[in-house]
């Protein structure tokens, strides 16, 4: 791709004492101004990918190009300091002995006054202009994280790498900090690669998402594509709550009278993905609905989640929270049209 800012191709990394590679045959491409989220379970290799791109660790093979120049490849290995990359880590990693303004100016070159005014500009940008004289321990977690972002942005890097930047934040403020960061990144038209285990953060910051598993990229694409058409049960699960049924389980529901789009009969070991919000609950006996029993009912704020048993399966269902069914109640359920996606046998899990 010509206009890609970051191009990672065929990268592999093994750690000594571990038989399987931490990252294998990994390729990725980011366009200028894009925000991309790399998600996956812990140990899936996403942080290693970040460190390889940053130059904090070296791949065993593969190439990395950044802004038109090769930073890693055969005979090429640009040190981290020279890659023009900005980084934001989990624990903000502000230098505790330096005031905020000095933290932001840490990497800047030039005269003292110039550095200071540029650092002040970036502190203003993240809304911390008034706190320039504070020490890191005098800031809240969210402020620290924004300061770390200001420090990274002040370098005017080609690419910003963020490693779980929000995971140490208090749950109450996390959402607003994520939104603020999204806004700042958009305003500065930065290109950013975010690594996170939280799909919510990925959804709210990134248009493109890559799901990693066992050191490889399992699927990537737009968030809604991934949500609707995951290639595997792993991806389906990662993007949100999912009911995954085998074809034969699903067909037994149809035999008992459930109306739903035709899915064909071949491949009886394949799977069907049903998102919890695609199942509708009612108490009325409407043709095409099927009987089930409420096993558990959880209030989750704006919605309510039920586990219903409809032998041979249990289904997770989400409804608006004003629809209340008591535990043990008999209900009937149906499935929204065009909401099924099929998973092949090999990728059920």
């Amino acid at each position: 791709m010509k206009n890609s800012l970051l191009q990672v191709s065929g990268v592999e990394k093994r750690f000594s004492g571990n038989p399987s590679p931490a990252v294998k045959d990994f390729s990725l491409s980011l366009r200028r101004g894009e925000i991309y989220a790399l998600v996956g379970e812990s140990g899936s290799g996403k942080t290693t990918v970040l460190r390889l791109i940053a130059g904090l660790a070296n791949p065993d093979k593969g190439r990395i190009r950044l802004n038109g120049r090769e930073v890693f490849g055969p005979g090429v290995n640009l040190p981290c300091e020279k890659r023009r990359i900005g980084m934001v880590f989990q624990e903000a990693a502000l230098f505790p002995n330096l005031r905020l303004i000095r933290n932001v100016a840490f990497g800047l070159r030039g005269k003292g006054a110039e550095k200071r005014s540029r650092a002040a500009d970036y502190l203003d940008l993240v809304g911390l202009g008034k706190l320039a004289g504070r020490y890191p321990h005098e800031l809240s977690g969210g402020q620290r994280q924004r300061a770390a972002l200001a420090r990274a942005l002040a370098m005017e890097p080609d690419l910003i790498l963020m490693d779980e930047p929000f995971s140490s934040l208090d749950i109450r403020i996390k959402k607003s900090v994520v939104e603020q960061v999204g806004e700042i990144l958009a305003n500065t038209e930065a290109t950013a690669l975010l690594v996170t285990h939280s799909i919510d953060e990925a959804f709210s910051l990134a248009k493109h998402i890559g799901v990693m598993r066992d050191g490889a990229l399992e699927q990537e694409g737009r968030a809604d594509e991934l949500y609707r058409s995951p290639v595997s049960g792993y991806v389906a699960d990662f993007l949100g709550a999912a009911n995954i049924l085998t074809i034969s389980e699903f067909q037994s529901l149809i035999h008992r009278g459930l109306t739903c789009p035709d899915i064909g009969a071949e491949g009886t070991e394949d799977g069907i993905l049903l998102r919890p919000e695609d199942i509708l609950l009612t108490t009325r006996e409407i043709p095409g609905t099927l009987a089930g029993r409420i096993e558990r009912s959880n209030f989750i704020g704006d919605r309510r989640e039920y586990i219903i048993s409809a032998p041979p399966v249990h289904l997770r269902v989400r409804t608006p929270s004003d629809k209340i069914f008591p535990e043990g109640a008999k209900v009937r359920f149906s499935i929204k049209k065009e909401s099924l996606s099929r998973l092949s046998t090999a990728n059920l899990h």
Partner: protein
Amino acid sequence: MGFTHRRGWLILIGGPALLSLLPMAVLLPGILESSSTWLHLRRTVLADYILGSLILLAGAGGGAFLLGTTLAWVMSRYSIPFRSFFEIALLLPHAMPVYISAFGYRGLVSYGGLLHPLFREFSGPGAAIFVMTFGFYTYVYLACRAMLGTFGGQFIDSARAVGIGEWQLFARVALPLMRPAAFAGTVIVGIEVLNEFGALTYLGVESLTTGIFRAWFAFGDLTAAVKLSLIMLAAVALLITAERLLRGRASFAASGSGPAPVSRRKPSRSVTLILMIFLSIPILLGFILPGLQLLLWAGTGNSAAHADRLVEITVNTLLLSGFAGLAGVGAALLIGFLPLLFRRGIGRVLAEAPGLGYVVPGAIIAIGIMRITVPLDSWLNDLHFHFFNSTLGLILTGNLAILTAAYCIRYFAVAYRPIDSAYTSLGSLHIDTAAGLGRSPLYVFLRVYLPQLRQAAFFGGILFLLDVIKELPLTMILRPFNFSTLATATYALAADERLNEAAPYGLVLVAIGGGITVLFMMISSLQNYRRRKQ
């Protein structure tokens, strides 16, 4: 290249770190060598040397173990009046070198001495074990205090919940809990016992160390000294192995939440009195009594006549140990950075390597260094003679820079420990962050790490200084001709039975050491207080 690159650190810092093992390494080929002195020693006194060292190890090691553990338990468990006094005073014997304590006691029991009515004799292995026990127990005591202070609480509390008495609590809970720390402390005591030279010659006890000195000073035979050093090195290795085996897998860690010190108990009046007497014994025997004798001598002697010399030697000592302290702390700061730069093994190995010197008695390191410098000097002289037809004399041997390097090798671990734990709590993330901001390891070392290591460096430096000031065997062997420190001056004069003249030197040495100890304790308790207040 240089310090701005990781590889620069590996070579410029990691290299010298490994080089510190050289004095020990050069001794090893000594196994194959032989000399007439060695054959003579082996035939005549070698068995006595080994037996002497073993008796001292068992006696002083056992004594320090018992004293250290019980003191630690009493101080951790009971609220006692004048607690903060005992807190500091119990460490004072650490500032009293045992060679000074030994000649102090000789004075106390001699005719006219304070203890003369009770004892007439102070010499032999028993006396040596006595002064060593009361001089070295602090190593066991401090290790056990730290152990009980960090997480004794949860074990003690749960044991009390099942209703066992105080004696049982000590024997069945506290002692097993302290055991790993106590063993580790006792190993250091063992090394100090093997290191000790002054007290033994003074009390007429033969050991491997006195043997090394005799081989070197009396016979001038480096080979024999090397042979004896190797035997001693084997003894050290045995000690450490034994400690590892005894400790087994019992390296305790607190389960659950943070540190929980032992909760204190207020004993009955009579018990309080008994405990206070018990706590006073080591202070009295390890510090006050010998110190008092020094004072008496200094008062009666015509010390004014030697005032100039005393000032000169005090300045010598302070300059040398201050310089060595700076070098030691500097080395620890630089070398301690390696594990952060190289996270996969190599950094840790390089940083821990110089710490090995701490378990090697000073005489051994000194002999190892001589084995390097003596041939180098003779080679330099040959070279000079070849070109200029004259000799240079000894350049490296008996050089203050070499002596400083020897201190750094011997006591690196002392300065390194607090600095390393400060590095560990800071972590290596700052290096990565700085790299992301285009800054080199050197830049982040200077701007971020160093400013935050000031306190650890200060503590490490103080402890290092304290050890260097007291150091005798290394200094004796490696000092320049006619150069004295308070330690060598005290020893030399006392060995000549010029006790009145020796006393002022010993007194100044103890005063400096005691002053540093008190200052150190006060500063660190102030720090603790501040931390608690935050």
